């Protein structure tokens, strides 16, 4: 997985910053959109993209999907390095 590509500046970086700062959080697209003050549709798309890169975990149910941060320490440490270089 190319982390550089996955964390293109903009909405995806904002989402990853949010989950990195709040690693215990599990939230719906609506919730995440509210926390980072972005459009829900765009957030939903970005959340799915980040899930496909394993940066986020999707908890799916019939009524909604909750997203949370990866539990992989190695991936988290790589994300930290990249976020330091590249602010949201």
């Amino acid at each position: 997985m190319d982390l550089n590509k996955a964390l293109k500046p903009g909405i995806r970086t904002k989402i990853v910053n949010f989950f990195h700062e709040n690693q215990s959080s599990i939230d719906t697209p609506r919730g995440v959109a509210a926390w980072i003050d972005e459009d829900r549709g765009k957030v939903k798309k970005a959340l799915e993209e980040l899930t496909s890169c394993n940066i986020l975990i999707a908890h799916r149910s019939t009524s909604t999907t909750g997203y949370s941060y990866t539990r992989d320490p190695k991936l988290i440490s790589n994300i930290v390095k990249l976020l330091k270089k590249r602010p949201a």
Partner: protein
Amino acid sequence: MEEIRGQNTYQIELFERLRRSVSLKKAEECFGCIIKPAFWWIIDKPNPKTKEIEDLLKQSYHSIKKIFTDKSGECLNTLAETLKKSAEHKKLLSFDCMEDFHGFVFPIAQGDKIYGYIGACYSRKEISSEALQIFPAFADTIVKEVQKEIELSKLYETLRPRAIALSTVHTVHRLISSTLDLGELLPRIARLSLQIMRAQRCSVKLVDSKRKLLLPKVTVDLRAKKIRLKKVKVGMWAPGKAFKYGRPVRARDYLATPLIDEDIIGVITLYDKIDKKPFTAFDQEIMSTMAEQAVIAIKNAQLYKEQERLTMGTIKALAKVLDTRAPGTYVPRVSSVKIAQCIGQEQMMDADSLKSLEYASVLHDAGEVFVPKAVLAKPTKLTGKEYKMVKAHPAAGVEIIKHIKALKGVTPIIMYHHENYDGSGYPKGLKKDQIPLGARIMAIVSAFEAMISKKPYRAAKSINEAVMEVSRNSGTQFDPKVVDSFLNVMRRKDIKDAVKRDQRESNYIR
């Protein structure tokens, strides 16, 4: 600007923000034009010592490339005295010192408390009374602005994590209350708890009240490949203690939270945080809320399961009663129920539809109870009147179950399971997609079951012969897509074995 550092956290933040304040810099520039001071300074202590004032002045002089000399101590005394007076009166005071230099001191205060001072020194021009009147208003506004900033940032720091945690709990509630299947629910609770607590291992244990044991239902461990599920006695280990005392049990590396309804129904235990930090009181608070949500979902799932068991029990009792009339006719083969379920799964039916299909497997021919036994067992061709009686059995079956609300989804399957794909069936002569999917599946399963059963008027077909017969009628009697699914299912060894087992066990005539 030079400053003396204070100790108090609020003070430190207040003065750090003041030093960075753009408004204060602008005020200094603006007043600098009027009073022409050589330097501005901030003291972040209410009662600075003489040595600290001296250091400040030395640093301030150094900043303008001058050497501070105050052999008589006049300068220090003047400034110390002015600071004291300014604190006493809580107002701006000007002073004159040394060789005709001027300056002023403004106390930074909140209520009665003095935090420090802003001041200016080394002005060659006497400070005008207008400037002395205007500066306090400016400085006061700037200090208040900074104090508000601190208040807001404190609110943000305390409220935002709680709001995010609350949002998480709300999301978790939605995720766990969307399933009534205990087998799906408990692992989901474990995984979500792991995620919220950033822990390595989570186990959910439910109480076996008869044996006073906690039975392991699910354990998720991010590190282990193999997991051993252990029973825990009441009072033993963290889960046993949480159960015994009815409250969370927390230590550095574990957190056990009881699931409390009217009684304690189980315990969720988390072990070892990913970042190796200890479990905190805040974690305990969040897990207690999570446990409250989980217990509702678990109770609902248990009630639903009980309700399902009750419905199935009622249906089986009904089938037994009907079976006394024609033994072996209404109690279905286990394999038939399984075949119907597997076809339904292949056809992507949802859980409710699959449940209806299961109930229909038992009840689809219940209406035959109104058809005379002699007609059902007649080896020769039926008369018109007899055929009319047989054709009425689906509607009669619906009549029997129509008052049972839980069987609402079963009625279309019973009603139309004798419809043919080409429209030649009964009771309505529906064709293709007009026939509900459940009924199209049941048509195949009941025909297959009838073919492999021995009847008073004919011998049973072999499994292969029956499968071929179903296949031959694809597109006419049966839906070709459902026939494909049936053929896929019948290729499975477990299904073939189940059918053979049923054939061996059922010696009765169907």
